[in-house]
C-alpha cells in the first residue's frame, strides 16, 4: 500500500470520537492537564459529528437544583424505575450531581435555552427535560473542544486500540486511517477516552431501500464504542439491554415534546385508550415491584418505557392498530402547533419531510406511531456499555478500581454511550461523563500510571496490515470476475451488513419476530455470527470510503456478538417491550437482580460471563429529605 504511516507520539490523552462525550472530555482535559498533549480523533468532522450532529430541541437531563426542582438521587430513582432496576447508581448519581454545571456553561457559551417567563427557570418539557433551540448544539460544543485540544484529527476513523507491551492489560493509544487521504494514523497515548457511539443498523430496520438511512439513532453510530473496547478485552455490562423506541411512523420523529409539553396522547385504531388493559397481566409478569398500578396512580410513579412499549406491541398484535398520536386537540393552539414543527426541525428534519410529502397536517389528522427496530446504546432509556469504575466517594468496592470512568483496561476510559449502566444521560450527561473521564485520566497520568508504555513496530505493522486488508482482498479477487458485486471470494460491506441485520433480527429479537427470542435461537445466532466473522476476514473494499464501511461493520459485528451472549446469559424477560425470552417470560429477581458482565478474550475470541451485584441508593433514614449540600 502506498499509504503513509503518520505517527503521533507523546500524547497524554487521546479522545476517540468527538460527539457529546468526546467534546466534553477534550474540553475538560485542558483544565486539569494544562501542559498535557490532548488529541482528538474523529471519523467525520467535529462540527457535525455524533448523534447530535443535526441538533436537538431539548436537553433531556437537567436536575434544576438551582431552581429547587430535583436532587441527583431523584434522577437516579427515575432511571432505576425506567430500566427495571438494572443501573449503576453510583455512576448515575455522579453524573446527575455534575450535569447542571455543564448545562449552565452551555448557556454561557451561547446555546439558546428557553426560559419560563413566569418563573424565570428554564422552560421544562418534562420533569427532567428542558427546551432549547439546539440547531447549533454540536458546533457550539465542538468549538469548546477545539479550543482545548492540541490537535483535532477530523476524518480519522479509529479501528483499534493499541496495547502496551511492557505491562499487561494497559492501553497505549490507538490506530486508524484517514477517510480522505487513506493514510495510516498511529496515536501513542498514555490514556485513551473512548467516546465513540452506540449502534444503529445492527438489527434489520423496518424500512427497506433508501429508508434504511432514516434510522432512529444516526446511521454513523456504528457501535465503535463497543467494537474498540471489546477488541481490547475490556469488560462490558448490560449489553442485552437494547432499546426499542415508540416513535412517529417511518420518520422516527421524537415524541417526547408531544407527550410532555403538547400533552398529546395515544389511542388504538378504534380511537380507544389501550394501555391500561394490558397492565394487569403485565403486573403479573414483572411483579409489583416494577409495575404497581395502584401505587403508580397515587404517586404518579412513571411507567417504565419498555412496559409502555409492551402495551403498544400487544395492541398492534391483537389487530387493533395502528396506534395514533392524538395531536388534533393540541394543534388547535397555534403556539403549540409551531412547537410541534420546530421540534422536528431541531432534531429530526426527516419527519417534517415525511409529513410534507404525505400531507399529514397534525391539526386535522392524528399521525401514526410505530415501534422501531432495536438499537444498542448507553445514553437514552438503555444502559449498554463498558464496565467502568465509579467515583471514590460514592462507589462500593465492587464498583471502584482507582479512577472514575476507567474501564477494566488500565488507562482506558469511557464516556457517553461507551459507559455501561448509565441510561438517561442523554447529551448533557454524556458531555458531563466526558468531563469526569478527562479529569480522572489526567489524575491517572499525574500519578505516573501511564509511564513507560511501549508499542513495538511489530504491533503497529500488524494492525496496519489488518486495517487495509479489505482493500488488498478486493484487489486480489476483483479481476477473477467480469464485473458486478457477486464474487465467490468476498462480500462487500453492504452485503455483510445485510447479513448481520437479518440474523440479529431473526435470532436476537428483532422487529419481524415481535422482539421474541429464546435460548435455542440465540445459540444458532451465535454460530451464524461466528461464520460471519470468518467471512468478515474476506471483506472487500473497493475504495477508502468502503474501507470506512468495512470497519464500521466489524465494530457492529463485535457489538452484536456481545449483545447475543448477554441476551443468552440473562435467563429472564427483564424488559418486556424491549425484547422477550420466550423460554423465561418473567422478571426473575431471585436469580437475576444483578448486572451482567462479559469479557471477550482478544486472543481466542472466547466469552466469559459473570454476574455483578446491583447496588441501589436508599435513604439513610426513612423519609429523610436531603437538602442541597
Amino acid at each position, binding site marked *: 500500500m502506498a499509504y503513509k504511516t503518520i505517527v503521533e507520539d507523546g500524547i497524554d490523552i487521546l479522545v476517540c470520537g468527538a460527539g457529546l462525550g468526546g467534546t466534553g472530555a477534550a474540553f475538560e482535559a485542558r483544565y486539569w492537564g494544562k501542559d498535557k498533549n490532548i488529541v482528538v480523533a474523529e471519523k467525520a468532522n467535529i462540527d457535525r459529528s455524533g448523534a447530535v450532529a443535526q441538533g436537538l430541541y431539548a436537553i433531556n437531563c437537567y436536575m434544576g437544583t438551582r431552581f429547587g426542582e430535583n436532587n441527583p438521587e431523584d434522577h437516579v430513582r427515575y432511571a432505576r424505575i425506567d430500566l427495571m432496576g438494572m443501573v449503576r447508581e453510583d455512576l448515575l448519581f455522579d453524573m446527575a450531581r455534575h450535569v447542571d454545571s455543564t448545562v449552565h456553561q452551555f448557556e454561557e457559551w451561547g446555546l439558546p435555552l428557553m426560559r419560563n417567563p413566569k418563573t424565570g427557570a428554564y422552560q421544562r418539557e418534562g420533569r427532567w427535560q428542558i427546551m432549547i433551540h439546539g*440547531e447549533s448544539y454540536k458546533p457550539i460544543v465542538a468549538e469548546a473542544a477545539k479550543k482545548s485540544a492540541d490537535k483535532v484529527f477530523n476524518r480519522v476513523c479509529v479501528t483499534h486500540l493499541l496495547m502496551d507491551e511492557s505491562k499487561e492489560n494497559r492501553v497505549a493509544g490507538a490506530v486508524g486511517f484517514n477517510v480522505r487521504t487513506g493514510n495510516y494514523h498511529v496515536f501513542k497515548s498514555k490514556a485513551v477516552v473512548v467516546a465513540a457511539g452506540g449502534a444503529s443498523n445492527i438489527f434489520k430496520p423496518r424500512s427497506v431501500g433508501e429508508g434504511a438511512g432514516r434510522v432512529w439513532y444516526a446511521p454513523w453510530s456504528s457501535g465503535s464504542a463497543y467494537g474498540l473496547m471489546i477488541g481490547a478485552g475490556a469488560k462490558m455490562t448490560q449489553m442485552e439491554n437494547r432499546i426499542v423506541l415508540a416513535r412517529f411512523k*417511518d420518520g422516527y420523529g421524537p415524541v417526547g415534546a408531544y407527550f410532555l409539553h403538547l400533552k398529546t396522547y395515544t389511542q388504538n385504531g378504534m380511537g380507544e385508550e389501550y394501555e391500561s388493559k394490558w397492565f394487569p397481566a403485565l403486573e403479573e409478569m414483572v411483579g409489583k415491584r416494577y409495575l404497581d398500578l395502584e401505587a403508580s396512580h397515587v404517586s404518579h410513579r412513571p411507567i417504565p418505557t419498555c412496559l409502555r412499549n409492551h402495551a403498544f406491541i400487544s395492541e398492534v398484535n391483537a389487530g387493533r392498530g395502528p396506534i395514533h398520536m392524538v395531536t388534533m386537540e393540541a394543534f388547535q393552539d397555534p403556539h403549540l402547533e409551531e412547537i410541534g414543527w420546530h421540534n422536528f426541525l431541531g432534531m429530526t428534519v426527516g419527519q417534517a419531510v415525511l409529513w410534507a410529502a404525505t400531507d399529514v397536517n397534525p391539526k386535522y389528522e392524528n399521525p401514526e406511531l410505530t415501534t422501531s427496530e432495536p438499537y444498542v446504546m448507553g445514553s437514552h432509556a438503555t444502559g449498554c456499555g463498558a464496565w467502568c469504575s465509579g467515583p471514590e466517594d460514592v462507589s462500593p468496592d465492587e464498583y471502584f478500581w482507582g479512577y472514575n470512568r476507567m474501564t477494566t483496561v488500565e488507562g482506558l476510559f469511557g464516556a457517553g454511550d461507551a459507559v455501561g449502566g448509565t441510561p438517561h444521560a442523554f447529551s448533557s450527561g454524556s458531555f458531563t461523563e466526558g468531563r469526569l473521564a478527562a479529569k480522572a485520566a489526567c489524575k491517572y497520568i499525574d500519578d505516573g500510571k501511564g509511564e513507560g508504555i511501549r508499542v513495538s513496530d511489530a504491533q503497529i505493522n500488524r494492525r496496519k496490515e489488518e486495517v487495509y486488508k479489505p482493500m488488498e482482498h478486493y484487489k486480489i479477487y476483483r479481476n477473477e470476475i467480469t464485473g458486478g458485486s457477486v464474487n465467490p471470494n468476498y462480500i462487500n460491506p453492504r452485503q455483510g451488513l445485510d447479513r448481520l441485520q437479518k440474523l440479529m433480527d431473526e435470532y436476537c429479537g428483532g422487529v419481524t419476530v415481535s422482539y421474541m427470542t429464546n435460548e435455542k435461537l440465540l445459540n444458532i445466532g451465535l454460530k451464524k455470527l461466528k461464520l460471519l466473522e470468518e467471512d468478515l476476514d474476506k471483506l472487500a473494499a473497493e475504495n477508502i470510503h468502503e474501507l470506512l464501511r468495512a470497519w464500521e461493520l466489524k465494530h457492529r459485528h463485535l457489538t452484536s456478538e456481545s449483545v447475543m451472549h448477554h441476551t443468552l446469559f440473562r435467563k429472564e424477560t427483564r424488559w418486556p417491550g424491549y425484547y422477550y425470552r420466550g423460554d423465561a417470560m418473567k422478571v426473575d429477581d431471585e436469580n437475576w437482580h444483578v448486572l451482567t458482565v462479559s469479557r471477550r478474550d482478544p486472543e481466542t475470541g472466547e466469552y466469559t460471563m459473570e454476574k455483578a451485584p446491583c447496588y441501589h441508593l436508599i435513604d439513610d433514614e426513612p423519609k429523610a429529605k436531603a437538602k442541597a449540600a
Partner: protein
Amino acid sequence: MPTFVYMTRCDGCGQCVDICPSDIMHIDPVVRRAYNIEPNMCWECYSCVKACPHNAIDVRGYADFAPLGHSVRVRRDEEKGVIAWRIIFRNGEKDMNLLAPITTKPWGKHIPQLADVPPPSDEMRDSQYLFNEPKYIRFDDGGLHTLESNKLQLKAGVYE
C-alpha cells in the same frame, strides 16, 4: 434519495463533502460536482444542505415511504444567529415559514480558553469538583452533593 444536488447550482466547492457526518457527499470526477453516493446511509440531517454556499443541495424524502412533490428548505445564518425553514406540502395546502435562533452570543466568543484560566489547586484536584464547580452547579455557596450530604447509602440487592 435523501439529499441530491442541483447540477446548475453546484460549483464543486466541496463544503458538503467536508461536513457530511456519514461521508456520503462526494465529488463526481466526471461532472466535478457533489452528489450523494450512498442514499441509504443518509439521515436527512441537513448538515450539507446548511453548509452549501449556493443552496445547491436539497432533500427528496426516502423513496420507500415518502411520495414526491414536497419541499423542506433551510437557510442558516451564523452572523445573525438564526435559522429559517420553509415547509411546503405535496398538495400545496400548507406553506410554513419557521424561524429559530441558533445562538445567543457572537459565534465562539464566550467559550473559555481553559489553557488561560488559573490552574486548579491541589485541594481542587483531590476533590470531586470539575471546572467551574462548585459555583456553576447552583450559583450558590453550597458544595457538591454526596451520599453523606443527601443522607443516602448504597445497598446491594433488591430495593423496596
